[in-house]
């Protein structure tokens, strides 16, 4: 009688469901004990857990309960919606237990229970995760405005190199100047490349937040399929992004679904991209300001570019190498007390739980930043957004300028034409 819940049985749908299950199994292992059995209960995780500094949360106890057969209690208690998924625990775990990944899977199980509605924990009324879900709809084609593309940038809808913009144009409505990250990034890439850079009008979300935050794996899979499809159609071989989350998702999570993803596509974060060009002698740095004042600045490592990458990925060393070099042009790089893998969290993961606890974590982070510099650079749009939100609430922090890596570099980067560099050599 009720058309909303009435689903027509058909062959088509069956087939799709089978395919989806195939993908689902690649990212979802229902047996949590399988993943936890290595744990020998040293409880280091609980000692370093960031959220536990502002509220009661003990990963070791949770693991213990699951291992001893009380998984249902943990699932029903809703406690895992609170996890920051920052993976500070993984960093200190002698057994390399990936707690964030376990929470992710547990959340999927929680969501399957009717009462476990995470909607109230999603900040900004869930609008952004809703948008991601909408983009995952099969029949829905996204049409993004491209009027933000700066003058002089040579872009196209087909080509080798893709600038993957991500959510920035959507954020721009609520978080001022989010687009300036995209503009800065695209400007830099276009200066360095002769060929037009691909910016897709129908780009869809990478699915990061649905994967980690709301555990909507089905939608994540749909998004991943759509993305791969679009990349292939456009002839892409190289993906550049300025977003820590998109980077991690393309680098680590998509290859889990599609074995050949990393063969087909080279994924670069803008840090790596600039680092390589710098090493190739294609870029130099130059301070346009004439003043001789030394500007102290610091760098906030996003979890997705530190703890969430394999040890061999040296992106946080590369960025520091650039920063240390900048001393020559009047920027003095200083580390905050907690940095690299030990970096403090911006307080929110995948739109989950923005509250006074997460605000406290941000507050703590800015106390550290204030102690060392007047500029704080980060390379994750959400970190920038969250930390800026707090900065705006407190007069104490108003002196700190919070910038994205691209926004910081766009003014001081200087492109050297290839033949020019040969001549100089």
């Amino acid at each position, binding site marked *: 009688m*009720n058309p909303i*819940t009435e689903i027509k049985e058909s062959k088509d749908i069956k087939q799709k469901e089978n395919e989806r299950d195939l993908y689902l199994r690649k990212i979802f292992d229902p047996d949590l004990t399988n993943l936890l059995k290595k744990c020998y209960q040293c409880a280091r995780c609980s000692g370093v857990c960031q959220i536990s*500094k502002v509220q009661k949360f003990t990963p070791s106890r949770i693991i213990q309960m699951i291992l001893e057969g009380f998984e249902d209690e943990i699932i029903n208690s809703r406690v895992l919606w609170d996890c920051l998924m920052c993976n500070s625990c993984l960093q200190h775990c002698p057994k390399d237990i990936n707690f964030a990944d376990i929470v992710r899977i547990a959340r999927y199980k929680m969501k399957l229970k009717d009462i476990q509605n995470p909607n*109230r924990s999603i900040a900004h009324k869930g609008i952004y995760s809703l948008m991601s879900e909408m983009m995952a709809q099969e029949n829905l084609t996204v049409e993004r405005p491209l009027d933000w593309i700066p003058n002089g940038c040579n872009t196209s809808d087909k080509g080798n190199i893709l600038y993957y913009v991500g959510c920035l144009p959507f954020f721009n409505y609520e978080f001022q100047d989010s687009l300036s990250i995209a503009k800065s990034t695209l400007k830099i890439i276009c200066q360095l490349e002769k060929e037009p850079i691909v910016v897709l009008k129908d780009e869809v979300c990478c699915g990061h937040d649905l994967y980690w935050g709301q555990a909507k794996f089905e939608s994540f899979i749909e998004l991943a399929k759509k993305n791969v499809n679009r990349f292939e159609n456009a002839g892409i071989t190289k993906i550049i992004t300025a977003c820590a989350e998109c980077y991690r998702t393309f680098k680590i999570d998509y290859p889990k679904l599609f074995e050949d993803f990393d063969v087909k596509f080279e994924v670069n974060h803008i840090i790596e991209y600039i680092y390589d060009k710098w090493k190739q002698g294609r870029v130099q740095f130059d301070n346009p300001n004439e003043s001789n004042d030394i500007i102290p600045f610091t760098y906030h490592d996003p979890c997705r570019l530190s703890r969430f990458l394999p040890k061999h990925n040296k992106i946080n060393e590369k960025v520091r190498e650039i920063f240390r070099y900048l001393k020559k042009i009047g920027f003095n790089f200083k580390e905050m007390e907690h940095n690299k893998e030990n970096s403090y969290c911006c307080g929110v993961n995948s739109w989950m739980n*923005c509250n*006074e606890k997460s605000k*406290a974590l941000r507050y703590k982070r800015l106390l550290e930043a204030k102690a060392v510099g007047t500029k704080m650079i980060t390379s994750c749009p959400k970190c920038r957004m969250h930390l800026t939100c707090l900065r705006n609430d407190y007069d104490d922090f108003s002196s700190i300028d919070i910038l994205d890596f691209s926004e910081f570099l766009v003014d001081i980067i200087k492109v050297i034409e290839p033949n020019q560099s040969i001549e100089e050599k």
Partner: protein
Amino acid sequence: MAKVGAVLVIGGGIAGIQASIDLADSGYKVYLAESTTSIGGVMSQLDKTFPTNDCAICILAPKLVQTGRHENIEILINSSIEKIEGAPGHFKVDLTQRTLRLDQEKCTGCGLCAQQCPIEAIDLFNEKLSNIAAISVKFPQAVPLVFSINKDKCIGCGICKGICKAKAIDYDLQDKLITLDVGAVVLAIGFDEYDPTPLTELGYGKHLNVITSIEFERILSASGPHSGLILRPSDGTIPKKIAFLHCVGSRDRKHRKDYCSSVCCMYTTKEAVIAKEHMNIIEPTIFTMDIRAYGKDFDKYIDRAKDEYGVRYIRRRISSIKEIPDSKDLIVCYETKNGKIIKEIFNLVVLSVGMEPNQKANELAQKLDIQLNEYGFCKTCTFSPVETSRSGIYVCGSFATPKDIPETVIEASAAAGCVNILLSEARNKLVTKKELPEELDVSDQPPRIGVFICHCGINIGGVVDVPNVVEYVKTLPNVVYAEHNLYTCSADTQTNIKEKIKKNNLNRVIVASCTPRTHEPLFQATIREVGLNKYLFEMVNIRDQCSWVHMHEPEKATAKSKDLLRMSVAKASQLIPLQEQEISVINKGLVIGGGVSGMTAALNLASQGYEIFLVEKEDSLGGIAKNIYRTLENDDVQEYLKILIKNIESNQLIHVFKNAQINGISGYIGNFSTNISYGNNGKIIDLEHGIIIVATGAKEYQPKEYHFGKDQRIITQTQFEKDLFTSDKIKGLKSIVMIQCVGSRNDDFPYCSRVCCSEAIKNALKAKEINPNIEIIILYRDIRTYGFKEKYYNFARDKKVIFIRYEEVEPPELKIKNKELKIIVTNPDLGKLEINPDLIVLSTGLVAPIKENEELAKMLKVPLNEDKFFLEAHVKLRPIDFATDGIYLCGCAHSPKDIRESIAQSNGAAAQAVKILSSEKLVTSGLVAVVIEENCIGCGSCVEVCQFNAIELIEKERAFEDFTMPIMKSYVNPALCKGCGTCGAQCPNSTIVIKHFGFEQIHAMISALLIQS
């Protein structure tokens, strides 16, 4: 003899409604006598209202409902006054209530009788443009919603009697004689539209396509004869060209209507605009003399009509209309700017008829022994605008002078304010409070839901299969009882509901019937009477949403009723009792501004025994009135002011602070605290008070134009007035030029200052009185002597004052050559004219003190309009209040106005304020927003969107393991919260919960909808 705490209000239009609500809210028993079968008056007939284009019935209907269900108001429809005896404080009034031929108590307004009635009568509400059954209700939103039988048309066939399930119809019911004991009487009988039949040259009644403006208003209305389509009477086609003729029955000495009806310029523009909005092909043309857009934001409305809607204004009155026999189109002749006479054909002509005294005014005046003025309106005085010639009988609205709705509402409150002075000792004597049993604690009990489903005669039952729905509801979880009633709202059903609650131990109650807007409070009161918290009630509207919209689809209507009930049951299971808080009230008031307005309001409140703090920024009281000697009507302002100041300063309850400055205001309704410094030494004091009245006034514009300040022969009207009344300076003068609209109606001050035309005419007349040979020329754009002020415009013309019109684009030029003043003015008809006056008087406008108003508005957290005057809660129906409770507005702080109007608004503000001051405690609603503090990050977006200033950010400290953090937390003040839910929708963290509409409750409803039945 003790005074009677009851008031009779005669007339149930917007004036009578407002006066009744104000009086009933401040503790008097009110009898509202209405001559027709429903309250609502002319406003209920209007399609839209200017200048906001609000739908008239949409904003009026809530007031009708409020009046209808007010426990202190008794509405006596179909009644007329017979006799009055006694003195102020204790009148005895005889009324006749004519029979409706049915029992008002029994009729539920279901409408079955009208559907079956075989006889048609003329629909007077639709201005005779359509028909209606002989048994009918005046209009669908009528209050009280009872039917009545048209005695002249009814053939007594008995069908209605047979079909009426409530057994209400009784052909033999006789007229009733009612005797009332009241302390005061308020007259609000309104006006009649002028009948243009005697103006044979316009052909009304002869030419089919000549109609009156009120008829056109009904044609525009969606509930009118053509459902909002604009069709002309002769052939039902759309009239492409419509001419509107101003001043029909106004400004017409010959027909003894030499006053201005005040509202026609504006309502005609509105009708033209709305006609254009309805059908874009219509080309409206307005024939007018002056455009009298003198009210707040009116000129902007006229500009919009011209610029955005292309309404054409032609400054000519039309002398005759000829009909083209075949097409029934109409030929209108008029003179163009260059003197040519042209003929233009229109498809429809609308006569903007003026207001004339209510036809019953004479008879009523005799019965009540009150005087009427020369035009047949109620006689009042400038300084007592709502008092009739008989003490204890008050007047408001258009029975006193023609006026628009906001001014009517202001006067209605003013009348209530003046009744307060007379009767305050009898307050709360005749209103009774119900004793209620203690509330039962149901918090530990599982939900036990009782459901009562209404047939509403056949209104619901004729479409929805009600017994079937009852059986279905019984199967739903937590429902322990369900039944159906013929009329769930009837008195015997209330008793039945209470019995069923007790018998079945019900702790949640659902009624499925009509709209919660009218009936929810009734059922809430019912369940409260047996000890259930009133928020344990849920109402489902299966009339409007099922049987009405799915009238021809009974199965679907029944299915939808089930769906809605399933949702409601799911929500009811989640309902929790809510507590209403009581907040104490400081019974003192703060009045800001010591001009005539502020002093009037202060005296009104003090006369009722309330302590008042009156703060004035200058070193003396009186405000702008200190510069005014006489009014246009020749009342002595200085004498009045002297007495007023004496009364203020001798009143023990009024504390005057002169040279005062407000440093800060905190608190909320009932509990404000204001820090002021005052006196020569700037002494500082904190004042505690329960209400605030803003009466900060306006100031005279200091012109930059016309060499003002550089030549002594160029002065403002204020200086001129002083010279006229205190010196003989003008005796030697030969010629004076007055220039109107200096500092008004221009780009900097795009509004009319309302008083300058009268000022100029007043001073011109005085000058002529002193020196009859003096030549006075007034250069004007429109002469805006609205209402009875028109009389003095005529006087001035009679005394040979010369009026020359100029247009905004070509203002008069001043040249000084060899010390000789020369004015060059361009008249649209005559061209350039030169005048050599001895004196130039600039009619300067009133402007808001911008800086002071901005500072005060910030402290009060109330808005200003574009012109920096204070902005009221609603321009039409709440002209005295702010959206923030407990703060009221009067006088020129609201917009430019004259003394009479300021006094009225001040008494009105006092009437609003006394509702708070006279209550010991205020009860907050249980239905408010609450912040879950833990999740609040203090972003402040809720503060920004709250219209009622109910939310503030409070700094708190949070301590964590190794650091502490200051953090802002949002707090909703339940005393100010209206439960509108905007903050909850805005909160990015979903951490604001609207009680009774919580996340779980709404989620339960949606889940219930999605679950298959």
